[in-house]
Structures are given as C-alpha cells and as structure tokens.
C-alpha cells in the first residue's frame, strides 16, 4: 500500500499549482525551495517569470542547479517597430486567460497530459457534462476548478441546467462564471497538432495572438493577416482601414478529423484533413460562417454574452455531428460583432482531432441539424439590429425577438432557442452581479 503524501509534499504541490500567483519565494527554507524548483522543472512550468522568482531568492543551491542545467534567461531584443500606433501582439498575463473544457468523457488524463505543456500556465475551468454519470479522472499539476451538475444546479437552478447546459453546451457554464478577459475552449477529444516542422502547436498562444492583434473586417487583405510577421497590407488597401478593430473571436481549425457533418463524414469515411494552411484571416463584415466550437478563443469582456447555448436538437447527441449548438452560437456572435464593429478571425491554430464515433450510426437518427441550416443561415444573413443595441446583451435580446417572430413559426426548436437566448441573458446578468466584488 502506498505511503500517503506528507503535508510538506502536499504544500509544495499546491504551491506548484498556484505558482503564477506567488510573487516572492525567498522565505522558503532551502530544502523546500529546491524541491519546488525540481518539481517545477518536471511539470514543465519554468517560465521566464518563474525562473526570475527562483533567481531572486539568491539561494546558492538553486542558483547552482540553474547553472548546472545551463538554464538561461531568453532575452527578447527590442526591435524598432515600423507600424506606428498599431497594437502588436502583447505578451499577455497568464492571469487574463481561462481555459474552459467541457468534459464529455470521464477520463481526462490523456487529454490533459497531452495539453500539459500548453495549459499548465493557465487556470482551467472544467465543466462536467451534467448527463455524465461517471466520476472525472483528472491528473495533477494543474491550476483548475471543476464544476459538476450540483455546482451548476446551485448556481442557476436545476431547470436551467437541464435546458441549457447538457452535452457540449456544458462549457457555456464555464463562460458564464469565468472571471478572465480571454477564454479558450477546446473539445476533449482533441490533442495538440504538430506543424510542418514537427513542432508542437501552442493553440492557446495562437488564439491569444489572434485576439490581441487587430482584425480587418472592412476590406479583404489578399495576403491574409497583415499583422503577422513577414506580411503587411497590400497595394490598394485604404490607409484609413489599416489600424483595424478589436478581434473578439478566434476560430481555429482541425487536422485529421475535420469538422464535417454526418452525411459528409459518412460519404467520405477515410478522408482526413492533412492540409496545414498557414494563415489567419479576418472574416469580412456581413459575411456569415459556420463557427465550430471544437477550437475557439474569445474576448469574454467584449462578446461574452453572445456565445450562448440555444439551439438544441431534439436528438442532440454526444458527437459534434449530432449537434448544431455551436453553429448557432457562432452566427449570433458574428452578427453581434458586425453590429458592434469588432472582428472575427478564422484559420490558425490547428488542433489534432481524434477519431471517434460512427457517422453512419448518427445518420440513422434524423438529419435534423442539417435540414435546419436551410432556415438558420438566411435568417442570420438578414437579421438587423437597431442602433439602440449597444451591448452584446442588448443584441442578443433583439436577436431572440427576431428568432421568435421569424423562425419560431417554422420549427419548435427555434421557439425554444429564442427562449433560451432570453434566459441566458437573464442568467448572465444575475450570475455576473453575484460574481463581481
């Protein structure tokens, strides 16, 4: 039988998980400091900021360890910028980011282990699908909070839990209670992809880069993202449009199993996406797109309430091609972004989506989602919001009214979606008020 962990080792583990919140380590006894240092190394959490913390203690043993391992501070040279007044991608504070994971599978060990080099710096919100019966298995070494059905019930009432947060939509609870500026969400059946050189792609860093550099929705740049290194605006691009606008949503892509609907997946069971398209581009204003929830990042402070769980299929299932909630949510966000004058980007980063499910089995259920798109897309392409709608909440309420009026009569699922949108905004206001200090 294993010896239970000592209080000291538990304390060190806890310190490791919350390292980003610690500003001074010099009070620690030497042997504990060394232990913490070695554990930090093993966990892959030695960032520049944390290395400086250890160096600042001045303790000889730590310093000799650093020297022996030849660990060096990486100095980023300050380069003159040729783009005056344009916001370049800032180094963001880890504290500004929440990684929200909807757990549809109980065992998150391999998922989190694969993402460890990318996720371990950040705070994670893990929301367990209320329909999932088994206990979650989560490996250690992360700074995270887990929310289960009872937590959600307590926060919003069990009726809302059932109508809004089951299945893939459980992640929206995470968006609701997050306190951070940026949120990144990745499906729990995806692992980091590798780029053409074999290096691990840090999807979170790319989403943050997308969200902290301007978007350019008013005119198309043929060299894609002009704020990317080695690119710029092309000849013919008006100068008045070159400062861009805030990017509120970043839509990533998928290698291996692309996000196809069930009919397409069933028709081409062997097709795998192996094409790495090295581009990020802004989706132009008034252009609608199908936003896949598999791999996204967004600025919660700018558009948070507009990402919402509303369109639930009668036979919604636990495979992405048995849902359309994210497609609906994405189009709401796009309309809101277009109205508020902020941008949406699509392209990098890629994640690797694992094989799962049988599309043909899914086809035996109704093709409900596929059929509904015929009504959904024209609606979002034509919906117009009033000048009075100045916040995302206002926009969602106006959209819900339009959904009820124009789509409600077409299919009951739309009437329910309109109700869900209104309920969501109410919840958002209530929960946000409770959360603010």
């Amino acid at each position, binding site marked *: 039988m294993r010896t239970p962990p000592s209080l000291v080792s538990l304390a060190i583990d806890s310190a490791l998980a919350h390292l980003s919140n610690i500003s001074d380590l010099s009070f620690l006894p030497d042997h504990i400091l060394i232990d913490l240092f070695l554990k930090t190394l093993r966990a892959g959490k030695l960032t520049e900021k944390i290395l400086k913390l250890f160096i600042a203690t001045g303790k000889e043993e730590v310093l000799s360890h650093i020297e022996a391992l030849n660990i060096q501070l990486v100095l980023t040279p300050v380069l003159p910028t040729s783009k005056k007044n344009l916001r370049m991608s800032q180094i963001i504070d880890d504290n500004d980011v929440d990684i929200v994971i909807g757990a549809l599978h109980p065992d998150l060990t391999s998922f989190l282990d694969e993402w460890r080099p990318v996720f371990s710096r950040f705070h994670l919100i893990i929301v367990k699908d209320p329909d999932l019966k088994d206990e979650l298995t989560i490996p250690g070494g992360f700074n995270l909070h887990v929310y289960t059905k009872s937590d959600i019930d307590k926060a919003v009432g069990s009726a809302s839990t059932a109508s809004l947060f089951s299945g893939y939509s459980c992640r929206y609870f995470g968006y609701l209670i997050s306190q951070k500026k940026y949120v990144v969400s990745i499906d729990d059946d995806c692992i980091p992809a590798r780029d053409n050189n074999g290096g691990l792609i840090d999807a979170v860093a790319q989403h943050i880069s997308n969200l902290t550099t301007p978007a350019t929705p008013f005119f198309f740049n043929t060299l894609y993202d002009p704020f990317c290194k*080695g690119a710029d605006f092309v000849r013919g691009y008006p100068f008045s449009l070159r400062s861009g606008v805030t990017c509120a949503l970043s839509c990533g892509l998928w290698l291996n199993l692309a996000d196809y609907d069930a009919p397409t997946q069933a028709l081409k069971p062997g097709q795998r996406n192996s094409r790495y398209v090295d*581009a990020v581009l802004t989706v132009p204003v008034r252009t609608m*797109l199908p936003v896949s929830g598999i791999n996204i990042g967004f600025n919660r402070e700018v558009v948070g309430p507009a990402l919402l769980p509303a369109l639930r299929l009668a036979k919604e299932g636990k495979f992405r091609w048995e849902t359309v909630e994210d497609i609906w949510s994405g189009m709401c966000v796009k309309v809101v972004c277009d109205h508020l004058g902020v941008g949406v980007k699509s392209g990098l980063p890629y994640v690797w989506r694992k094989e799962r499910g049988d599309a043909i089995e899914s086809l035996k259920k109704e093709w409900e989602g596929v059929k509904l798109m015929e009504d959904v897309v024209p609606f979002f392409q034509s919906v117009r919001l009033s000048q009075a709608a100045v916040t995302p909440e206002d926009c969602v309420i106006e959209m819900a009214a339009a959904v009820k009026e124009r789509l409600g009569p077409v299919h009951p699922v739309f009437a329910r979606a309109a109700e869900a949108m209104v309920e969501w905004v109410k919840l958002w206001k209530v929960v946000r008020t409770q959360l603010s200090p």
Partner: protein
Amino acid sequence: MAQTSASPTPLLKDELDIVIPTIRNLDFLEMWRPFFQPYHLIIVQDGDPSKIINVPEGFDYELYNRNDINRILGPKASCISFKDSACRCFGYMVSKKKYIFTIDDDCFVAKDPSGKDINALEQHIKNLLSPSTPFFFNTLYDPYRDGADFVRGYPFSLREGVPTAVSHGLWLNIPDYDAPTQLVKPLERNSRFVDAVMTIPKGTLFPMCGMNLGFNRELIGPAMYFGLMGDGQPIGRYDDMWAGWCMKVICDHLGWGVKTGLPYIWHSKASNPFVNLKKEYKGIYWQEELIPFFQAATLSKDCTTVQKCYLELSKQVKAKLGKVDDYFIKLADAMVTWIEAWDELNPPTGSAELPNGKGK
C-alpha cells in the same frame, strides 16, 4: 499522404489566351515554356512601337504595339492607356477565347514547399473550372479541392456553388506592396506559402492585382477594363485595382464568384518605390473615396449583362466621383468608350471582320 486520383486538369489550350504586357523583353517566357508553350499568347507592347520585342522561338503569338491599337480602335484607342501596363486590357478585347490568363514579365515560376515547380496556369484553370461559394464562408476554404469539403453547418442548398469569374493568384518573394510600405520595409519578402484557395465573399471588396490573374472572359471580360493610367494621366498603378473593384461589384450583382489564393508565382523585380510613390500618390488619397463608393454601389435589376452593369457603373462614377476630381469624369467616359470598343470587336454573332495583329 495518399492522394485520391482526381481527373487531370484539362489543358484548355484552344480556349485560353495568355495576355502579356511588355515594354522590355520576354526572356521570362523561357522559364515558363513547359507550362505556356501549348497556348496562344497575346502580347501587348507598351511604349515605343518602333522597338522590336523579341519573342522566344516556338511560341504561338500575336503582338500589338501602339500603332496597332490606334489602327484597330481608331478614336476609341483613347481608352487604352499608354506607358502603363494597363494597356494589357487591349489584349482581353481582341482575344477570341473563353479564358484569359495574364501575367507580368517579371514573374517567374515559383516552387511549392516540397521544391516542386508550380504550374500557375494549371491552378488558375482548376480555380476557374470549379465553382465558387460567395454566399457563406467555408472555414476549410475551397471545398472543391482534393482533401477538403464543406464543413458542418454549411447549408446543402449552397453547396453547388456559382460559376467562378476570376481567379486571383499571389506572389512569393517581392510582395505587392504600395510605395509607402515598400519604403518602410524595402527588405521584406513574402516567404509564406499559404496552401489555400478561397472565395471572396459577396459584398466584400479586395485589391485585385493584375500580376497573376485568370478570368472567364466570356463571363466577365467587359468589366476588366484597366482604366486610364500612365502617360498624360494623373495616376498610375491603380489599373488593376480599378478593374477589380468594378468587377467585384458586377460579379456580386450577377451572382458569380471570385477566388483568391493559389497559385503563387515568383515576383522577381521590386520596382523603384520613389517612382511608384509619384504614380500612386493621388491614388492613395482617392482610394479613401473610391472604397466607400464601390462598397455602396448598387446596380438596378435591369442590369442583366456585364455591359449594362458597366455602363450603369460609369454613370455613377461620373455623378459621384466626378466631384472628387475631373479625372473621374474622363475615366467614366473612357469606360463607355471601352464598352463600345468591346462590343464592336466582340459582336454577338461574330460576323465582323477583325484586323489581326502581327504574329506567327
């Protein structure tokens, strides 16, 4: 990765003309020989008509210099620019083929990341022969490419797409920057190979570069007028931009698609940024008015042909942009002259006798 064997791209050698404007020489054609030799070339010689332009052996071509343009068009030749590559649109007008590919004489064959030579013409043909999807953005880009498809959420009713009118290619090495950007970043080179073709959504304008461009002449030809540039004009280097904005408004109105992305060519020559600045100077200010004009431009329902669309656009140019500068009044008139010349050289029944240029 194993590629499923797709049907080979048709050569279209009797349906496509390659239009090349030149003022110096055509040595660059040697590098393109393996890809261009099957096709008919239309060479538009700008500048001094007494200069002899050497065309490499073995190419089937017709060549037009300024004297030919004046002879063929008579007074209407005033709409064709002089001392600017905008003169290339004369080549579109005299061509009898369904498709046009146009390329600058400082553009060479590029290599893809695997080191293989890129057959730019073949990619343009692929782009033009497969549909476009301007009504809804596909996040996996061109769904008709091998290995791609429409993503979840894409309505099935939109999956047939619409005819592709224009295929806009890109450039490795010297990117197509304006003069101010060139001055600030003289050393920047485009080394990013973006393996995508995508449809530019309806209602979205873009800067169309004429360096590496393919289009369906039967569909959109009359809209591809490259404007009044160069000698005697207050502006240069906006020929392709002008054509691109007019073309996009018309394509959006008539329900056709415009693609951008692959293929890449290797752009070898960086033109003098100070010379460019002089040419572009007015354009940089004017484009601030031009973009809102084109973004707001609407065409009436009875504009059912490209010519009608173009003529209506010319009226709007005169009315609204005439206030910006007198140049636009001249340009609007030239747009009308262009359509008249186009219709003369391309009558519907094709019974008119057309004078030929010098050729093999």
